[in-house]
């Protein structure tokens, strides 16, 4: 190859080279450098894991190694349930691979309506609306419910989809201190009386795995005339006698106006929903943009969801085993000397708080090398700038696996100095 061939020819019609200050991606340079510095220390990239094979809800092959999964949201272990898989296959054969259309046009098939029926049975509500993801359910419901001149009052530790729902809409947004009933009361008290208000709460806060004091919070919201939405993404399946969520367990179902949830956790597939007894709820199908302007879920997905939801109603044994796993892991990690996100086991999420990013990544990698996958979480996803290893338990983890997991944490914690002498 000659010199000329590798030299770009400059002609009059070539665009001028982009000046560095006009490169729109330059604003991410600090993050690119931070990530590169981390990778250069020789650790595996915690945000680039590939599962080569998935053997069960609790086991996968990662880089050729059999690995226990402790960082999924497969709480009820429904992903390989034979009835669920069979329902998906049957719908795939009968209805094809996708709808290629919006729910309000050509994208509602009988499996979509059946899935909404399954939700109404599960939640005992008059209405159910299925979205393409849980993120879109929050985005759509929150941005549409509260309009210009109205108020959304949300917990400071709310999930990104709740914040983004506020960002998409036109309402005034006020936040209160995480789980503080007093702060919620104070902030609601300062707002003008007339405009409509929506208080947005979560049953389980997913970063630390703590639950909300819903009876107190809902009472305060009602006192100030606000409507209440509870996101039960991490509570569905194993809180309450029917597995509806924290709001059912805490006995506030009658005072919660809207429940938002997802199919991508206990249900074991993908999709989102909102259920309500509000008599006018169905109008949301016409006015909610993230519902209208996107393609509906593939029929196989809603068929698996409907089957899974119907089975979850009667999964009391699985629920009991999941709680047993959560209590054992929490106690075991606490005894080893780890700092945890909650003093008591409150949900199926147990967050291990590490000192900094270096220690968190070292610990994460040491666990992976032993054959255990957990989630690493860092700011801005985490509250108070914390670096966390988040463990989420599954009803399909055996008691033996939980003991194995505790043993792996013991070894990794000592190897990285996260626990042991002097700490």
């Amino acid at each position: 190859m000659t010199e000329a061939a590798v030299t770009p020819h400059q002609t009059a019609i070539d665009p001028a080279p982009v000046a560095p200050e006009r490169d729109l991606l330059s604003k991410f340079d600090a993050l690119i450098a931070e990530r590169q510095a981390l990778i250069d220390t020789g650790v595996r990239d915690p945000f680039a894991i590939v599962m080569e094979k998935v053997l069960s809800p609790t086991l996968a092959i990662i880089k050729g190694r059999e690995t226990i999964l402790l960082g999924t949201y497969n709480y009820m272990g429904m992903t390989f349930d034979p009835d669920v898989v069979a329902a998906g296959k049957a719908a795939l054969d009968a209805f094809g691979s996708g709808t290629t259309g919006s729910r309000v046009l050509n994208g509602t098939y009988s499996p979509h309506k059946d899935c909404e029926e399954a939700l109404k049975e599960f939640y005992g509500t008059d209405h159910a609306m299925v979205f393409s993801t849980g993120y879109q359910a929050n985005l759509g419901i929150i941005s549409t419910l509260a309009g210009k001149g109205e108020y959304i009052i949300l917990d400071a530790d709310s999930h990104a989809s709740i914040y983004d729902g506020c960002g998409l809409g036109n309402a005034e947004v006020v936040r209160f201190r995480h789980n503080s009933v007093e702060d919620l009361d104070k902030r609601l008290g300062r707002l003008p009386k007339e405009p409509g208000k929506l208080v947005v709460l979560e049953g389980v806060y997913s970063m630390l795995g703590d639950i909300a004091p819903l009876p107190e919070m809902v009472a305060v919201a009602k006192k100030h005339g606000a409507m209440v939405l509870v996101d039960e993404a991490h509570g569905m399946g194993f809180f309450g006698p029917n597995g509806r969520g924290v709001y059912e367990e805490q006995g506030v179902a009658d005072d919660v106006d809207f429940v938002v949830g997802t199919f991508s956790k206990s249900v074991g597939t993908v999709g989102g929903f909102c259920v309500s007894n509000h008599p006018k709820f169905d109008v949301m199908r016409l006015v909610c943009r993230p519902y209208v302007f996107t393609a509906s879920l593939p029929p196989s997905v809603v068929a698996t969801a409907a089957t899974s939801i119907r089975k979850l109603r009667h999964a009391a044994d699985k629920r009991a085993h999941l709680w047993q796993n959560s209590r054992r892991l929490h106690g075991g990690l606490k005894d080893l000397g780890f700092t945890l996100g909650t003093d008591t086991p409150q949900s199926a999420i147990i967050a291990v708080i590490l000192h900094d990013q270096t220690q968190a990544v070292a610990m994460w990698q040491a666990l992976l090398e032993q054959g255990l996958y957990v989630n690493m979480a860092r700011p801005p996803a985490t509250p108070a700038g914390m670096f966390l290893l988040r463990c989420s338990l599954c009803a399909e983890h055996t008691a033996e696996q939980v003991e194995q997991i505790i043993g792996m944490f013991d070894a990794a914690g000592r190897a990285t100095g996260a626990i042991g002498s002097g700490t």
Partner: protein
Amino acid sequence: MTDRAQTFARVAEQIEPFNKKGVDVTDATTFQGDLEWDSLTVMDFVAAVEDTFDITITMNMQAEIETVGQLVDAVDKLQQG
């Protein structure tokens, strides 16, 4: 002291406990650039200002406020309203 000067003085008082770098506070001081506050500090500070003046500074308003001077003007406006 004018009303605005009084508001400025009370806002400056609320800044002090969070002013770890000892920045000289003027109307032009920015919260992110000069005071180098992260989102958690901003939240605590905003709560303190709201309590002091018994007002609500919504997140929508906070997004528009970059300097101490802009905050003082916003507080004055909210108190009149």
